[in-house]
């Protein structure tokens, strides 16, 4: 029998169930490189809080990490139902982490529905912690179990740890004077305490955090601390857990770090763009999943030069933002696919007015309302082409949660430099996922240059900068520069309404040229591996982590595969076409039915192959690796 810990990632010889090894009661700690853990339960069980708290302390412990929350679209689906299951997965490691992990090594399931919805993902031989207190007949029925999986032998391939979290929490809190309902709400802290013991996390920072979170209700703070410590001590004393696992801090670039979620990085990126440009940020939005938290966060940043405006609808939001830009502030709006669809006409007006505007699309599953809480990359063609007329807009995408910060600043920079709306694509996976972020220092970021025209002499409304083709930005209120702009075609110089046929063609071409010139400001392509070989994997957006890791694994096996990840989708990088042609094969993985691949084939006449997934879930590393294996030979060809 193997002596491998049930808490660590099982290898090929992992035990398929069977009696657990009995070990001495004193703590034994095994060191592991990386661990993937998933907490799941009913949406009323507080699993998101459990996950984020575990993440916070793990980040403070210096591990590299990546997280993936997964919650239902309904705020409160019927308790105990599969539809109401909420989950939170994270991978943490002593080395660089690219993704939240393909499959959890440890699954904490707070009720039968959570078990049913998540069990298939748990690696065979993985640790399964179940709250037996929730495995009642009605709950089993609601989850669709005909027999109790804890009793019918169906879980034999896992290391099952049966813990009556419900009862143990109630016992720990019986003297607190709290109602049984309130006590029930502390279960997640018991589970968190247990996980802290299992993965050897320090308890002090968590106790501090609980005190802060529940500062206004000290009796709840006390109860949650009690439940948390009860869970921790249970791990230590209960004989079912044989050892705890330690993951050492990851070696990362020197500096100050904080754990950051994608939407938060986007919000802070916007404020930073305001700092770098000296512009006030005018953010107008309308509530929509999964973009709303950008609005929430920015609404706290008024003291940093941000005004937020919650509008009556998505159209008003982009309209108000454009009004802000006309007024000389940097207008920004954020939404998700359905909201972006509504904004289309205004994006056209912004193209016509040639004012800076940043439109953020936190993509989710579509079409229509689709899968509001799940991730997808299916709005690329919408961003590139989804408007009437010849309506070019620069489009870029963020790659990781922390990268949302840099991508946002880049979007603002281009919007101002070229006087154009810019679309920034992120997605639900980036928005709610988190990773450590190296906090910048002031000198690290280049200022964003802004010039407002104030000189009335010789002013022509659509006269352009010869390099960027941007027209001048004039703040209303500037003496002597009154002018009118609008959505009717304008004379190429004066901006007056013009129906002249040749002028229209000149304007269409000029707007296209202006966007093409954005590429002049691009840095080098984001390429990993040699610039030629058997296979180039070309990705964009949030698939970055999974592609990077799968390519790294394949290269370690000697496969001649490289990875290019596109920051800009429009315009495309000037060197991309040549690069694609230096590989035998090109693979384009996307969380859609093949959108970038169409663009690449059309632009460069390359026989790029598509690899797609639209399950509302990111690619796993193993899926990508398997595809790379099919397309490459394992060793260097002679």
């Amino acid at each position, binding site marked *: 029998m193997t002596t491998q810990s049930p808490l660590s990632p099982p290898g090929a010889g992992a035990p398929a169930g069977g009696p657990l090894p009995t070990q001495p009661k004193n703590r034994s700690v095994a060191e592991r490189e990386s661990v993937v853990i998933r907490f799941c339960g009913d949406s009323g069980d507080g699993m998101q809080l459990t996950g984020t708290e575990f993440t*916070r302390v793990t*980040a403070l412990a*210096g591990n590299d990490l990546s997280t993936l929350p997964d919650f239902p679209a309904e705020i409160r689906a019927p308790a105990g139902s599969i539809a109401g299951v909420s989950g939170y997965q994270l991978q943490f490691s002593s080395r660089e982490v690219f993704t939240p992990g393909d499959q959890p090594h440890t699954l904490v399931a707070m009720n039968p529905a959570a078990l049913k919805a998540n069990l298939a993902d748990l690696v065979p031989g993985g640790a399964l912690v179940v709250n037996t207190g929730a495995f009642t007949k009605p709950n089993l029925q609601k989850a669709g179990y005909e027999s109790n999986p804890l009793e019918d032998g169906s879980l034999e391939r896992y290391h099952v740890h049966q813990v009556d979290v419900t009862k143990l929490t109630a016992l720990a809190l019986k003297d607190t004077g709290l109602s049984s309902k309130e006590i029930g709400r502390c279960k997640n802290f018991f589970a968190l305490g247990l996980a802290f013991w299992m993965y050897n996390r320090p308890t002090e920072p968590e106790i501090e955090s609980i005190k802060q979170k529940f500062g206004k209700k000290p009796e709840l703070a006390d109860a949650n601390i009690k439940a948390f410590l009860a869970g921790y001590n249970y791990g230590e004393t209960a004989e079912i857990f044989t050892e705890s696992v330690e993951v050492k801090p990851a*070696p*990362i*670039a*020197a*500096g*100050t*770090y*904080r*754990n950051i979620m994608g939407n938060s990085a986007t919000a*802070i990126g916007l*404020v*930073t763009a305001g*700092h770098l440009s000296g512009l006030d940020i*005018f953010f*107008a939005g309308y509530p929509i999943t999964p973009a709303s938290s950008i609005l929430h966060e920015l609404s706290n*940043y*008024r*003291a*940093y030069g941000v*005004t937020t*405006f919650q*509008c*009556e609808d998505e*159209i*008003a939001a982009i*309209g*108000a933002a454009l*009004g*802000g830009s*006309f*007024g*000389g502030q940097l*207008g920004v709006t954020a939404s998700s696919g359905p909201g972006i669809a509504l904004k289309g*006409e*205004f994006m*056209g*007006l912004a193209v016509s007015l040639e004012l800076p505007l940043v439109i953020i699309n936190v993509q989710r599953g579509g079409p229509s309302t689709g899968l509001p809480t799940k991730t997808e990359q299916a709005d690329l063609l919408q961003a590139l082409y989804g408007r009437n007329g010849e309506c070019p807009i620069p489009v870029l995408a963020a790659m990781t949660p922390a990268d949302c910060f840099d991508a946002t600043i880049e979007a603002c920079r281009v919007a101002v430099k070229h006087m154009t709306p810019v679309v920034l694509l992120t997605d639900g996976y980036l928005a709610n996922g988190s990773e*450590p972020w190296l*906090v*910048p*220092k*002031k000198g690290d970021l280049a200022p964003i240059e802004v010039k407002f025209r104030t000189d009335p002499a010789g002013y022509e409304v659509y006269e352009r900068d010869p390099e960027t083709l941007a027209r001048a930005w004039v*703040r*209303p*209120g*500037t*003496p*002597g520069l*009154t*002018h*009118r*702009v*609008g*959505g*009717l075609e304008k004379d190429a110089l004066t901006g*007056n*309404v013009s129906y002249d046929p040749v002028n229209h063609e000149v304007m269409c071409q000029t707007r296209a040229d202006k966007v093409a010139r954005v590429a002049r400001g691009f840095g080098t392509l984001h390429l990993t591996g040699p610039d030629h070989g058997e296979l180039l994997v070309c990705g964009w957006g949030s698939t970055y982590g999974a592609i990077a890791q799968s390519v790294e694994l394949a290269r370690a096996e000697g496969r001649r595969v490289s990875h290019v990840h596109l920051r800009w989708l429009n315009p495309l990088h000037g060197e991309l076409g040549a690069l694609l042609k230096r590989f035998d094969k090109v693979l384009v993985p996307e969380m859609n039915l093949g959108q970038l691949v169409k663009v690449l084939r059309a632009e460069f006449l390359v026989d790029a192959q598509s690899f797609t997934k639209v399950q509302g879930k990111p690619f796993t590393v193993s899926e990508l690796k398997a595809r790379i294996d099919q397309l490459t030979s394992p060793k260097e060809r002679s």
Partner: protein
Amino acid sequence: MSNPTSMEGAAPIKLTRKDYASDQDVRWCPGCGDYAILAQVQKVFADLRLDRDKTVFVSGIGCSSRFPYYMNTYGVHSIHGRAPAIASGLKVARPELAIWVVTGDGDGLSIGGNHLIHAIRRNIDLKILLFNNRIYGLTKGQYSPTSEFGKRTVSTPHGVPDRPFNPVAVALGAGATFVARAFDTDTDHLQAMLRRAHAHKGTAFIEIYQNCNVFNDGAFEHLAEKKVHDERVIALEHGKPLLFGPGKSKGLRFDAHGRATAVEVGEGPGQVPVGAIACHDESVDSSGYAFVLSQLDYPTNPVPIGIFRAVERPTYEQTVEEQARKVAPTGARKDIETLWHQGDTWVAGSGGDAE
């Protein structure tokens, strides 16, 4: 070009309409009521010496929405129905600018109805001029949300099947703090309304009856025509009794349910003494009174023009500015590094962070 309106303190040069006209040819159909409205707006701007550099006209789509092109101020001719959205963003971002919105019955009450009612609800300091010609002009004659029930148009050959909006009632329903109605052709009255709108702090909404002589000629002739005007129109004047008719010989009385009856005013038999006619009060706190007035319509009652309601309420942008002052009393921005470092941070890597 120098700007006479910016020269504060200099000897006042008499300004004229021309100082507020842009260099663009006005392209409405000859005879369109829009010309008269443009002239009165320019006249009022000249009389009040308004600063064109600090003024922005914002419009949507439709005949009336060409308006900004003809004003020598800042201007945005935007997209259909969305002018209040742009104008709201602009006003919140730049509260010191004077912002006028020009819209029509289709633009403002149909495709853009949502933005209109929410701008009004927020009491953002916008001057909204709704040119009501009860038809779609630019798209050639379809019925609009203010067209009469049963009206035959190109899109309703069997008659309009729905009931029209009453723009004044819509504005009041949205909580408007200033609501007025005027005729395009009644120049002095229109000027007076524009002046009051300019002076109002908050959303000022004016419905302007506007003749589209091409697609709906004479839509308001039954009210405007000299012979019947006094009989069919009642001019609301603050503090004055609700009188109308030839020589102000009639008055309005209301029953407990807000129904109006016209009565002969005088001391004779069957007449009501003028003292018994209610005086108009535009400052009534509740909008119920103004709403009752808004329901007066031809042919049952005379149609009111003038100011239905003018009350003071904090504007949206004032509230936003006050909130901003609370978090940043000096107006100076907080240091960006404070934001970067908020929350749990840790120092990692060799040497750490020596900041």
